[in-house]
Protein backbone atom coordinates (compact mmCIF):
# COMPACT_ATOMS: atom_id res chain seq x y z
CA UNK A 1 0.00 0.00 0.00
CA UNK A 2 1.22 3.44 -0.77
CA UNK A 3 1.54 6.14 1.79
CA UNK A 4 -1.44 8.22 2.58
CA UNK A 5 -1.57 11.85 3.59
CA UNK A 6 -0.97 13.22 7.03
CA UNK A 7 -0.92 12.02 9.71
CA UNK A 8 0.42 9.06 7.86
CA UNK A 9 -0.61 5.49 7.59
CA UNK A 10 -0.96 3.30 10.57
CA UNK A 11 0.52 -0.11 10.09
CA UNK A 12 -1.71 -2.82 11.41
CA UNK A 13 1.05 -4.80 12.93
CA UNK A 14 0.57 -6.63 16.17
CA UNK A 15 2.87 -3.99 17.59
CA UNK A 16 0.76 -1.10 16.41
CA UNK A 17 -2.45 -2.61 17.63
CA UNK A 18 -1.13 -4.05 20.80
CA UNK A 19 1.44 -1.66 22.12
CA UNK A 20 -1.04 0.93 23.23
CA UNK A 21 -3.43 -1.64 24.51
CA UNK A 22 -0.80 -3.60 26.32
CA UNK A 23 0.83 -0.57 27.86
CA UNK A 24 -1.23 -0.82 30.96
CA UNK A 25 -1.19 -4.55 31.13
CA UNK A 26 2.11 -4.97 32.82
CA UNK A 27 0.04 -3.84 35.70
CA UNK A 28 -2.76 -6.19 34.81
CA UNK A 29 -0.43 -9.11 34.49
CA UNK A 30 1.48 -8.60 37.66
CA UNK A 31 -0.81 -6.69 39.91
CA UNK A 32 1.98 -4.19 40.50
CA UNK A 33 0.92 -0.73 41.50
CA UNK A 34 2.54 2.37 40.17
CA UNK A 35 0.12 5.19 40.85
CA UNK A 36 -2.73 5.95 43.16
CA UNK A 37 -5.47 5.17 40.62
CA UNK A 38 -3.96 1.79 39.91
CA UNK A 39 -3.51 1.15 43.61
CA UNK A 40 -7.13 2.01 44.11
CA UNK A 41 -8.24 -0.34 41.39
CA UNK A 42 -6.14 -3.12 42.80
CA UNK A 43 -7.30 -2.73 46.35
CA UNK A 44 -9.12 -5.95 46.96
CA UNK A 45 -12.09 -6.09 49.26
CA UNK A 46 -12.91 -9.10 51.37
CA UNK A 47 -15.81 -9.93 49.10
CA UNK A 48 -13.61 -9.72 46.02
CA UNK A 49 -11.00 -11.98 47.61
CA UNK A 50 -13.68 -14.52 48.46
CA UNK A 51 -15.08 -14.35 44.96
CA UNK A 52 -11.67 -14.84 43.43
CA UNK A 53 -11.05 -17.85 45.63
CA UNK A 54 -14.38 -19.23 44.44
CA UNK A 55 -13.24 -18.84 40.84
CA UNK A 56 -10.11 -20.81 41.64
CA UNK A 57 -12.40 -23.61 42.73
CA UNK A 58 -14.45 -23.27 39.54
CA UNK A 59 -11.29 -23.62 37.48
CA UNK A 60 -10.09 -26.58 39.54
CA UNK A 61 -13.39 -28.28 38.77
CA UNK A 62 -12.94 -27.54 35.08
CA UNK A 63 -9.43 -28.94 35.04
CA UNK A 64 -10.89 -32.06 36.65
CA UNK A 65 -13.58 -32.17 33.98
CA UNK A 66 -10.97 -32.11 31.24
CA UNK A 67 -9.18 -35.03 32.89
CA UNK A 68 -12.42 -36.95 33.24
CA UNK A 69 -13.46 -36.34 29.65
CA UNK A 70 -10.09 -37.30 28.23
CA UNK A 71 -10.08 -40.46 30.30
CA UNK A 72 -13.59 -41.33 29.17
CA UNK A 73 -12.83 -40.71 25.51
CA UNK A 74 -9.13 -40.91 24.67
CA UNK A 75 -9.90 -39.90 21.08
CA UNK A 76 -10.63 -36.45 22.45
CA UNK A 77 -6.98 -35.98 23.30
CA UNK A 78 -6.06 -34.80 19.84
CA UNK A 79 -8.66 -32.05 19.89
CA UNK A 80 -8.79 -31.24 23.56
CA UNK A 81 -5.33 -32.00 24.89
CA UNK A 82 -4.13 -28.47 24.23
CA UNK A 83 -7.32 -27.10 25.71
CA UNK A 84 -6.73 -29.09 28.88
CA UNK A 85 -3.21 -27.67 29.10
CA UNK A 86 -4.57 -24.17 28.68
CA UNK A 87 -7.16 -24.76 31.40
CA UNK A 88 -4.29 -25.70 33.68
CA UNK A 89 -2.40 -22.55 32.71
CA UNK A 90 -5.47 -20.51 33.54
CA UNK A 91 -5.68 -22.22 36.92
CA UNK A 92 -2.06 -21.37 37.64
CA UNK A 93 -2.70 -17.70 36.88
CA UNK A 94 -5.80 -17.65 39.03
CA UNK A 95 -3.98 -19.21 41.95
CA UNK A 96 -1.19 -16.67 41.56
CA UNK A 97 -3.75 -13.86 41.65
CA UNK A 98 -5.40 -15.31 44.73
CA UNK A 99 -2.43 -16.31 46.84
CA UNK A 100 -4.56 -16.65 49.93
CA UNK A 101 -6.66 -19.37 48.41
CA UNK A 102 -5.76 -22.94 49.08
CA UNK A 103 -6.56 -25.83 46.82
CA UNK A 104 -10.09 -26.82 47.62
CA UNK A 105 -11.38 -30.29 48.01
CA UNK A 106 -12.99 -30.19 44.60
CA UNK A 107 -15.62 -32.89 44.41
CA UNK A 108 -14.88 -35.46 41.76
CA UNK A 109 -16.48 -34.68 38.47
CA UNK A 110 -18.92 -37.30 37.34
CA UNK A 111 -18.07 -39.15 34.20
CA UNK A 112 -20.04 -37.97 31.20
CA UNK A 113 -23.30 -39.82 30.85
CA UNK A 114 -24.22 -41.50 27.62
CA UNK A 115 -20.69 -41.58 26.29
CA UNK A 116 -20.70 -38.15 24.63
CA UNK A 117 -17.64 -36.84 26.42
CA UNK A 118 -17.16 -33.98 24.01
CA UNK A 119 -20.65 -32.55 24.48
CA UNK A 120 -20.41 -33.05 28.23
CA UNK A 121 -17.05 -31.31 28.34
CA UNK A 122 -18.38 -28.42 26.29
CA UNK A 123 -21.14 -27.95 28.84
CA UNK A 124 -18.58 -27.87 31.65
CA UNK A 125 -16.46 -25.34 29.78
CA UNK A 126 -19.45 -23.11 29.09
CA UNK A 127 -20.45 -23.14 32.74
CA UNK A 128 -16.96 -22.19 33.87
CA UNK A 129 -16.71 -19.44 31.26
CA UNK A 130 -20.03 -17.99 32.36
CA UNK A 131 -18.99 -18.12 35.99
CA UNK A 132 -15.69 -16.33 35.34
CA UNK A 133 -17.41 -13.72 33.17
CA UNK A 134 -19.94 -12.98 35.88
CA UNK A 135 -17.22 -12.80 38.50
CA UNK A 136 -15.20 -10.35 36.40
CA UNK A 137 -17.99 -7.81 36.75
CA UNK A 138 -17.52 -7.69 40.50
CA UNK A 139 -13.75 -7.37 40.40
CA UNK A 140 -11.55 -4.43 39.51
CA UNK A 141 -8.14 -3.87 37.96
CA UNK A 142 -5.91 -6.82 37.26
CA UNK A 143 -8.35 -9.32 38.70
CA UNK A 144 -11.16 -8.19 36.41
CA UNK A 145 -8.80 -8.34 33.45
CA UNK A 146 -7.64 -11.83 34.34
CA UNK A 147 -11.11 -13.24 34.86
CA UNK A 148 -12.38 -11.64 31.68
CA UNK A 149 -9.47 -13.01 29.73
CA UNK A 150 -9.98 -16.50 31.11
CA UNK A 151 -13.70 -16.34 30.34
CA UNK A 152 -12.89 -15.34 26.78
CA UNK A 153 -10.31 -18.09 26.46
CA UNK A 154 -12.86 -20.62 27.61
CA UNK A 155 -15.34 -19.20 25.15
CA UNK A 156 -12.80 -20.11 22.52
CA UNK A 157 -12.58 -23.61 23.97
CA UNK A 158 -16.33 -23.93 23.81
CA UNK A 159 -16.29 -22.92 20.16
CA UNK A 160 -13.54 -25.42 19.46
CA UNK A 161 -15.51 -28.21 21.10
CA UNK A 162 -18.68 -27.44 19.15
Amino acid at each position, binding site marked *: *MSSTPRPG*PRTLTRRT*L*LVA*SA*AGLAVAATGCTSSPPVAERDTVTGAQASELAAQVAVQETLVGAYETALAADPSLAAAAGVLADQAGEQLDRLRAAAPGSSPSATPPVDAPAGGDARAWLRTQVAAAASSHADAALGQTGAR*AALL*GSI*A*AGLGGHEARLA
Partner: protein
Amino acid sequence: MADDETTGTAAEDAALDAALAAEHAAVWGYGAVGAALGPEDRGTAAAAEAAHREVRDRLITLLDARGADPAAPEAGYELPFPVLSPVDAAALAVVLEEGVTAAWVRVLDRAVERTTRGLAVAELGAAEVRAVGWREAAGRTPVTSALPGLPTG
Protein backbone atom coordinates in the same frame (compact mmCIF):
# COMPACT_ATOMS: atom_id res chain seq x y z
CA MET B 1 -10.42 13.88 25.11
CA ALA B 2 -12.26 15.97 27.60
CA ASP B 3 -10.47 17.23 30.64
CA ASP B 4 -11.47 14.22 32.64
CA GLU B 5 -8.24 13.55 34.45
CA THR B 6 -9.97 14.75 37.55
CA THR B 7 -12.93 12.47 37.16
CA GLY B 8 -13.20 8.93 38.36
CA THR B 9 -13.61 7.56 34.87
CA ALA B 10 -10.58 9.20 33.26
CA ALA B 11 -8.59 5.99 32.99
CA GLU B 12 -11.67 4.07 31.91
CA ASP B 13 -12.49 6.61 29.23
CA ALA B 14 -8.92 6.51 27.93
CA ALA B 15 -9.07 2.73 27.71
CA LEU B 16 -12.43 2.89 25.96
CA ASP B 17 -10.96 5.37 23.50
CA ALA B 18 -8.09 2.98 22.81
CA ALA B 19 -10.63 0.23 22.25
CA LEU B 20 -12.41 2.53 19.82
CA ALA B 21 -9.16 3.04 17.92
CA ALA B 22 -8.73 -0.74 17.71
CA GLU B 23 -12.30 -1.10 16.47
CA HIS B 24 -11.68 1.54 13.79
CA ALA B 25 -8.65 -0.44 12.66
CA ALA B 26 -10.64 -3.66 12.63
CA VAL B 27 -13.42 -2.15 10.53
CA TRP B 28 -10.86 -0.94 8.03
CA GLY B 29 -8.85 -4.15 8.10
CA TYR B 30 -11.81 -6.41 7.43
CA GLY B 31 -12.22 -4.72 4.08
CA ALA B 32 -8.84 -6.12 3.11
CA VAL B 33 -9.69 -9.47 4.69
CA GLY B 34 -12.90 -9.84 2.71
CA ALA B 35 -11.26 -8.83 -0.54
CA ALA B 36 -8.74 -11.66 -0.30
CA LEU B 37 -11.17 -14.38 0.73
CA GLY B 38 -13.08 -16.70 -1.52
CA PRO B 39 -16.80 -16.15 -1.92
CA GLU B 40 -17.58 -18.93 0.54
CA ASP B 41 -15.80 -17.13 3.38
CA ARG B 42 -16.69 -13.54 2.66
CA GLY B 43 -19.86 -13.81 4.70
CA THR B 44 -17.83 -14.60 7.79
CA ALA B 45 -15.65 -11.55 7.23
CA ALA B 46 -18.67 -9.37 6.54
CA ALA B 47 -20.31 -10.51 9.76
CA ALA B 48 -17.16 -9.74 11.71
CA GLU B 49 -16.87 -6.33 10.11
CA ALA B 50 -20.50 -5.60 10.95
CA ALA B 51 -19.90 -6.62 14.54
CA HIS B 52 -16.95 -4.27 14.81
CA ARG B 53 -18.93 -1.43 13.23
CA GLU B 54 -21.64 -1.94 15.80
CA VAL B 55 -19.19 -1.85 18.69
CA ARG B 56 -17.44 1.16 17.18
CA ASP B 57 -20.70 3.06 17.00
CA ARG B 58 -21.62 2.05 20.52
CA LEU B 59 -18.28 3.30 21.82
CA ILE B 60 -18.64 6.61 20.01
CA THR B 61 -22.06 7.10 21.55
CA LEU B 62 -20.78 6.18 24.99
CA LEU B 63 -17.78 8.49 24.84
CA ASP B 64 -19.87 11.32 23.41
CA ALA B 65 -22.30 10.95 26.28
CA ARG B 66 -19.43 11.32 28.71
CA GLY B 67 -18.23 14.50 27.07
CA ALA B 68 -15.13 12.83 25.76
CA ASP B 69 -13.77 13.26 22.26
CA PRO B 70 -13.97 9.85 20.62
CA ALA B 71 -10.95 8.78 18.59
CA ALA B 72 -11.37 9.20 14.86
CA PRO B 73 -10.11 6.62 12.42
CA GLU B 74 -6.58 7.09 11.18
CA ALA B 75 -6.19 8.92 7.89
CA GLY B 76 -4.67 5.74 6.54
CA TYR B 77 -3.50 2.31 7.54
CA GLU B 78 -0.84 0.04 6.16
CA LEU B 79 -1.21 -3.68 6.04
CA PRO B 80 1.34 -5.47 8.21
CA PHE B 81 2.05 -7.92 5.39
CA PRO B 82 0.79 -8.48 1.87
CA VAL B 83 -2.69 -9.96 1.86
CA LEU B 84 -2.76 -11.96 -1.32
CA SER B 85 -4.50 -15.17 -0.39
CA PRO B 86 -7.24 -16.51 1.87
CA VAL B 87 -4.58 -17.65 4.32
CA ASP B 88 -3.09 -14.15 4.40
CA ALA B 89 -6.57 -12.77 4.94
CA ALA B 90 -7.18 -15.08 7.86
CA ALA B 91 -3.81 -14.13 9.34
CA LEU B 92 -4.74 -10.45 9.08
CA ALA B 93 -8.07 -11.15 10.74
CA VAL B 94 -6.18 -12.79 13.60
CA VAL B 95 -4.09 -9.64 13.99
CA LEU B 96 -7.20 -7.50 14.00
CA GLU B 97 -9.08 -9.60 16.52
CA GLU B 98 -6.07 -9.94 18.81
CA GLY B 99 -5.59 -6.18 18.72
CA VAL B 100 -9.19 -5.67 19.72
CA THR B 101 -8.92 -8.33 22.39
CA ALA B 102 -5.93 -6.65 24.03
CA ALA B 103 -7.76 -3.33 24.00
CA TRP B 104 -10.78 -4.81 25.75
CA VAL B 105 -8.65 -6.50 28.38
CA ARG B 106 -7.15 -3.12 29.11
CA VAL B 107 -10.63 -1.70 29.47
CA LEU B 108 -11.31 -4.37 32.07
CA ASP B 109 -8.15 -3.39 33.89
CA ARG B 110 -9.12 0.27 33.94
CA ALA B 111 -12.89 0.13 34.29
CA VAL B 112 -14.62 1.57 37.29
CA GLU B 113 -18.17 1.11 36.05
CA ARG B 114 -19.70 -2.35 36.25
CA THR B 115 -21.56 -1.73 32.99
CA THR B 116 -18.25 -1.01 31.28
CA ARG B 117 -16.84 -4.28 32.55
CA GLY B 118 -19.93 -6.01 31.19
CA LEU B 119 -19.37 -4.48 27.77
CA ALA B 120 -15.70 -5.41 27.85
CA VAL B 121 -16.33 -9.01 28.86
CA ALA B 122 -18.87 -9.42 26.07
CA GLU B 123 -16.72 -7.90 23.34
CA LEU B 124 -13.58 -9.62 24.52
CA GLY B 125 -15.36 -12.96 24.37
CA ALA B 126 -16.80 -12.30 20.93
CA ALA B 127 -13.42 -11.25 19.54
CA GLU B 128 -11.69 -14.35 20.87
CA VAL B 129 -14.31 -16.66 19.37
CA ARG B 130 -13.78 -14.98 16.00
CA ALA B 131 -10.03 -15.25 16.47
CA VAL B 132 -10.31 -19.00 17.03
CA GLY B 133 -11.95 -19.42 13.64
CA TRP B 134 -9.42 -17.22 11.90
CA ARG B 135 -6.44 -18.93 13.53
CA GLU B 136 -7.73 -22.24 12.22
CA ALA B 137 -8.20 -20.77 8.75
CA ALA B 138 -4.68 -19.34 8.90
CA GLY B 139 -3.22 -22.68 9.91
CA ARG B 140 -2.10 -21.45 13.31
CA THR B 141 -1.63 -23.75 16.26
CA PRO B 142 -2.94 -23.73 18.83
CA VAL B 143 -6.11 -22.14 17.62
CA THR B 144 -7.18 -21.23 21.11
CA SER B 145 -5.55 -18.96 23.67
CA ALA B 146 -5.44 -19.54 27.41
CA LEU B 147 -5.33 -15.85 28.23
CA PRO B 148 -6.46 -13.77 25.28
CA GLY B 149 -5.45 -10.16 25.44
CA LEU B 150 -3.01 -10.54 28.30
CA PRO B 151 0.72 -10.24 27.71
CA THR B 152 2.50 -13.54 27.49
CA GLY B 153 5.56 -14.50 29.45
